[in-house]
């Protein structure tokens, strides 16, 4: 009896399991199908690298839910997909972009570029022609009545008009069309004014407007004639070349730009592999290399000085006020922690206002004492000093917290032994406190160095890298660090967008960061932790 109940329970459990596994399978198939459609659309637009990532995501999800051996991965399938898409892929994609000409004139994919060039048309001197009459609305919408040589008439809208149908039949009473004249052109169309010869001749827009559907556009050629436009370039699938149908000139595809023998090029090009050209360029081009050297040197000075200043001040406070007998310690700690509790971007902007060379409080005070004041934003040395002061303010509370914790963990008997040996306070600091402290907070110092090495917010929000370096061919300033320089290469308006080149410099940053992280890992026990299989 008990046995039977047990077996019934097993059957029931199995049924539940199989039902839930069917539901799971169904959900996985639906999700996979949606993702597959997304990947297909990506491929359609020519976004091949991103498409590959989505295929991998489909694989992660399907395998972890379908293969029993991989069932533990279910717990992290979505997390791993997000991690793949927004942590790993951006790094790989940066590497990929570093070897392309992705940037101004090469912003789109090959498919999109071919499509755009094929849309370019010209107005033939001969060919099918129409007589025409134009109509204009108050909002500068135009209609064009056409009559071809067979006597067939029609009315067409502008190509970019927001309408379902670009061609209207010429039937009085429909679409506001009034009585027709002798030729068959409407005398009136509701909402539009018929343009007579003089009005049409003086209308500035008329000759440049394209009428009709996108694949069959018509343009006014002369006061008596309108003609169908023809595609200007013919794409050859076999060779990948474009041919100008008007002149017969052939444009060959050279690294994403269709270029003719006489070096003229079609616009737009597409993002294509260019090998190591970006790297060669920043070594050989003085307009790029010059600022980059200045920026890299300052980047290292900035990170080192920031670490030194914040660490020193934080440690100083921790030692002086770490004394448990010091009254008001807690209040003091809370007050000194304040810079830490405000989002750093906000305080950077406040400092920007205070450092304003003409109107800020700092220079108003300095001027009232000394009569003159530094030009904080205009001179490289002063701008760099100001940035270090601000960063010291931003960073010391962190080190105050970290070092006061670390100081407490140094056993007091070491100090007592040193005191017996007659060591002075200064000697104790240099020979005991500092070495022991550096061992325990070393990894955090590297982390802080890496953080400051890429402290984009401070550099960008304070004075946007300025003052500018005059010899630079792109936007670059004396306080720029590598990451802010890269950002301006890619996103600063007006100087040309150069994603490929920016990515190439990012690669150099990756290597620097990787080396520093490696040092950090060796100092911490994180690797060993994994190794011991905790």
């Amino acid at each position, binding site marked *: 009896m008990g046995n039977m109940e047990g077996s019934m329970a097993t059957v029931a459990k199995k049924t539940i399991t199989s039902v839930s596994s069917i539901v799971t399978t169904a959900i996985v198939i639906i999700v996979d199908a949606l993702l597959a459609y997304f990947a297909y659309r990506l491929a359609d*637009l020519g976004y091949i690298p*991103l498409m590959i990532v989505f295929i991998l995501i489909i694989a992660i999800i399907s395998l972890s839910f379908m293969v029993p051996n991989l069932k*533990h*991965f279910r*717990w*992290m399938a*979505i*997390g791993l997909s*997000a*991690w793949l*898409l*927004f*942590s790993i*892929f*951006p*790094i790989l*994609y*940066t590497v990929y*972009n570093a070897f392309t000409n992705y940037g101004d004139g090469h912003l789109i994919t090959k498919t999109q570029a071919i499509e755009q060039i094929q849309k370019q048309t010209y107005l033939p001197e001969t060919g099918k022609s129409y007589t025409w009459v134009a109509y204009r609305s108050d909002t500068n919408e135009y209609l064009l009545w056409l009559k071809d040589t067979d006597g067939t008439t029609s009315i067409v809208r502008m190509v970019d008009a927001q309408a379902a149908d670009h061609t209207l039949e010429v039937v009085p009473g429909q679409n506001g069309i009034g009585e027709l004249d002798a030729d068959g052109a409407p005398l009136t169309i509701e909402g539009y004014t018929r343009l007579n010869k003089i009005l049409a001749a003086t209308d500035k827009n008329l000759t440049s407007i394209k009428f009709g559907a996108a694949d069959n556009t018509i343009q006014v050629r002369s006061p008596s004639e309108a003609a169908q436009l023809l595609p200007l370039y013919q794409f050859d699938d076999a060779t990948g070349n474009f041919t100008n149908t008007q002149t017969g000139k052939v444009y060959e595809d050279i690294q994403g730009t269709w270029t003719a023998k006489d070096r003229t090029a079609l616009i737009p090009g597409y993002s294509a592999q260019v090998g190591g050209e970006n790297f060669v360029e920043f070594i050989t081009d003085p307009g790029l290399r010059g600022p980059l050297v200045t920026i890299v040197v300052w980047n290292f000075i900035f990170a080192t000085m920031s670490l030194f200043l914040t660490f020193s001040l934080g440690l100083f406070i921790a030692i*002086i*006020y770490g004394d448990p007998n*010091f009254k008001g310690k807690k209040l*003091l700690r809370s*007050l*000194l922690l304040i810079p830490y*509790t*405000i*989002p750093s*971007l*906000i*305080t950077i*902007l*406040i400092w920007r*206002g205070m450092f*304003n060379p*003409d*109107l*800020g*409080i700092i220079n108003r005070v300095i001027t009232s004492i000394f009569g003159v004041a530094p030009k904080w934003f205009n001179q490289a040395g002063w701008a760099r000093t100001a940035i270090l002061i601000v960063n010291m303010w931003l960073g010391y509370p*962190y080190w105050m*917290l970290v070092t006061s*914790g670390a100081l407490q963990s140094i056993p007091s008997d070491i100090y007592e032994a040193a005191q017996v040996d007659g060591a002075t306070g200064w000697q104790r600091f240099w020979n005991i406190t500092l070495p022991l402290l550096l061992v325990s907070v070393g990894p*955090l110092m590297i982390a*802080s160095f*890496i*953080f400051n090495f*890429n402290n984009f*917010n401070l550099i960008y*929000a304070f004075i946007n890298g300025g003052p500018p370096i005059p010899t630079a061919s792109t936007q670059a300033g004396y306080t720029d660090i590598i*990451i802010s320089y890269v950002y301006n290469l*890619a*996103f600063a308006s007006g100087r040309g967008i150069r*994603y490929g080149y920016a*990515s190439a410099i*990012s690669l150099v940053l990756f290597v620097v*960061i*990787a080396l520093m992280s490696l040092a950090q*890992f060796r100092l911490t026990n994180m690797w060993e932790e*994994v190794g011991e*299989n905790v």
Partner: protein
Amino acid sequence: MSKKTETISGSKRTGLILRWILAIVLVAFSIFPVLWIISAAINPVNDLANQQLIPANANFDNFRQLATNPVFPFFTWLWNSIKVSVSSVIVTLSLTTMAAFAFSRFRFKGRQGLLKAILLIQSFPNLLAIVALFSIVKQMGDIIPWLGLNTHAGLVLVYSGGAMGMNIWLMKGYMDTIPRDIDESAHVDGATDWQVFSKLILPLLRPILTVIGILSFIGTYGEFIIARTLLTRTEMQTAMVGLQIFTAGQYTQNWGVFAAGALIAALPIMIIYLILQDQIVGGLTQGAVKG
């Protein structure tokens, strides 16, 4: 003998006085910018050049202007910031908690390799790949517009996907301290993995969920560069981006309004810090560096 003790206590007193003077200087350095911005916010002069530390005729005009100024839709930005940060925290916590559970409780092939890879990738801050992130979001938006540039959903995905690594490690470390006997006895009683996770482990995770949640909220709320790159339309921007763009223009004439905005934007984070100081300090010194 007695004279010697006197000099020692005398030098001790001098030391104490010196310390106090130094403390006052340090506190002045630390809180001056905050006092300055509070003073600017309540000063009706609204002009950087004429601002005084103790304002005459203090009032709340700048705050009123903040709510009505059409080129400075501050409260929209603030709401955007809160929306984006809260969503990111929820997504990050759910993804990392589940992943960390698997890493902590199961032993499977590829576990160690994956943990190491997560740690390694984490050391590259994702702002280094900002150009790539921009392209990825743009390309996704070409197909699904509500995931593209100028959308909060796209930004939340970037934040959550980029913050996985460290949080998985923190979470897994905490879970490892929960004895496995608990879940083994539950398994014996017939509980499934999901039941163990949701009924047993999850309630025990409240302290670490609070720490990671707060740290991610603060981090996302204060994040600037990715938001600045992905959100270009004024009404979609976050408070940090809005304030920065504001100071890039003619900010010296509108200093008071800016100060009022900066003060309000800083307030949520300051309050969180004051209430949860000890937990945050504990979490931060475990490895994170403030952004």
